[in-house]
């Protein structure tokens, strides 16, 4: 199995400073696999996804490191070429379906503009594709939805639209950034299953951002545990669940509710573990400071 997404030694800093947001991040995801990015809020999960797609906020820039898709180093490509690769080979399933659709544009063009603009498809072909995918995500009246504005659809509907749009161009890699957290609990499971099913059907490589280890266990084959923009542990899912190598991973597991025993008391991450994490970060920063 070859790696499709490969990140090595990625450092991202606050623009113009040496303050790191991502600390020497390395990870690789094999073709067709789902890789989880786990960590508490502010750990840098979204930043990794944004760095891959080249959509980091202005205040943050990549200082060093290599990101490659299918063996192609994105950093060496000229801007136009990089945009073309990103536009044709990747897609995003965003966290908040309420803000991820343009309120003043109809759903149809928002689903198909990547196909027609970046990939040069004919409009009719792109529309057919959009209809097919809307059916695949179980939307009942796809024609009507294509002509709707976002505010005419419910949150769950919009997230399905976004999922359909993400798969429209048959991307090689999808970054799903907490795709269910903004949804109603009742539809969360349904949407999660839909994403997992579609990923399997289309064989898409996926980076799955979440802070929920339970979700990771269900949809991911491998996982990176993050803290303060640093990878604490990268492991396949079985190893992570049964024999975590890093105490922080073990602590996170202990802090996650289980289906088997939902009543079991949850253990917060202990100070000793956090001190260990802080020590690792300090060590890394010292090295970085000397470089």
């Amino acid at each position: 199995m070859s790696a499709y997404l490969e990140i090595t030694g990625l450092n991202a800093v606050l623009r113009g400073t040496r303050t790191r947001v991502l600390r020497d991040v390395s990870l690789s995801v094999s073709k067709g696999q789902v890789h989880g990015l786990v960590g508490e809020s502010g750990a840098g999960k979204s930043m990794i996804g944004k760095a891959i797609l080249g959509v980091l906020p202005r205040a943050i820039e990549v200082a060093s490191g290599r990101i490659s898709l299918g063996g192609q180093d994105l950093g060496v490509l000229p801007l136009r070429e990089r945009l073309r690769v990103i536009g044709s080979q990747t897609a995003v399933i965003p966290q908040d379906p309420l803000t991820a659709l343009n309120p003043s544009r109809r759903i149809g063009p928002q689903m198909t503009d990547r196909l027609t603009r970046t990939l040069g498809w004919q409009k009719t072909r792109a529309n057919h594709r959009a209809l097919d995918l809307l059916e695949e995500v179980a939307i009942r009246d796809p024609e009507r939805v294509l002509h709707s504005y976002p505010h005419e659809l419910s949150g769950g509907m919009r997230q399905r639209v976004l999922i359909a749009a993400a798969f429209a161009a048959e991307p090689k890699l999808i970054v799903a950034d907490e795709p269910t957290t903004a949804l109603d609990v009742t539809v969360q499971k349904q949407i999660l299953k839909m994403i997992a099913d579609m990923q399997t059907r289309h064989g898409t490589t996926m980076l799955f951002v979440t802070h929920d280890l339970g979700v990771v266990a269900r949809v991911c084959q491998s996982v990176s545990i993050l803290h303060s923009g640093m990878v604490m542990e990268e492991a396949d899912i079985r190893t992570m669940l049964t024999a975590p190598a890093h105490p922080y991973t073990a602590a996170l597991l202990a802090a996650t509710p289980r289906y088997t025993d939902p009543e079991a008391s949850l253990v917060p991450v202990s100070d000793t573990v956090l001190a260990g994490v802080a020590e690792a970060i300090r060590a890394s920063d010292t090295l970085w400071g000397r470089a």
Partner: protein
Amino acid sequence: MLKRLLLRLISIAITLLGVSIVVFVAVRLVPGNPVAMMLGPGATAEDAAALEALLGLDKSILVQYWIWLTNVVQGDFGTSISLRQDVLTLVLGRLPATLELAFLALVFAALLGGMLAVTGTIRRGGWTENGIDLWNGLTLSTPDFLWGLFLILVFGVWLQIAGISGRISPQLDLPFTTQFYLIESVLRLRFDLTANLIGHMWMPALALALPLSAMIGQLLKQSLKETMHLDYVTLARAKGFTENQVIWREAMRNALAPTLTLTAVQFTHLIGGTVIVERLFSYGGLGNLAIDAVINRDLPLIQGIVLVFAVIFVLINLAVDLLYAVLNPRLRHG
């Protein structure tokens, strides 16, 4: 929808009525007596009284207003005291020149302001944006008539590359049947005349446009910058679109609303600005006529001009409301 339209029409009628009262009273409060102006020195008190009676100025202000209003409602704006012509004919004859100038200025302001906003958004946080902020600060704090003087000085006096007076070269043979010279010249495919008109109009139009372009530039840039880090814009970037494409396709429409309101309000100011700027460039529009009317204390003409300006302002605001509904689908359905 129908109810909204009806309410709107009623509010427009009330606005215009209010304007008519204010202007009617105001022109009678400013010092200067139209009768004395017309008769000149050496006229007797009897002459003055006779003329006053002829013009209806001897009646009480309430009666005067009532007579004037009932006439206006029937389309009779009275006769100009100084020019001895029908006010409505005079005003409508000059209005097209001013409208064309104002719209050219609006186009200049929108193009210039839009360009500054988009460039500043693409280059945000850098020296280019600082430069744009500085330029906008300069154009904003300098009033239109000063820009007019400045342009006259630079292009008319120093460089001597541009005519600085009038609407069109006087020796030309004009085929026009309306007063909308610019539009008609284009429709008749007489681009030589279009060029001549623009050659005369660009300086006053630019003078009027510069302050507004700065306002459009700053506000639109601000809105665009706020829009640029919304989720759907980030999503569009990840579709492989360039910054420029993202601005035009995703951000512009949603960022436009506040700028549109501001532009509407400021466009009415700009039309007000035509009064002095037209004078400066001897441009034969309504503004120039207004100054003459004020100098001559030509009450019916002043009233007519102000009322026409008021109608224009009301129509502009109506147009903006309609544009709003087009831009924002939620308003259209609500």
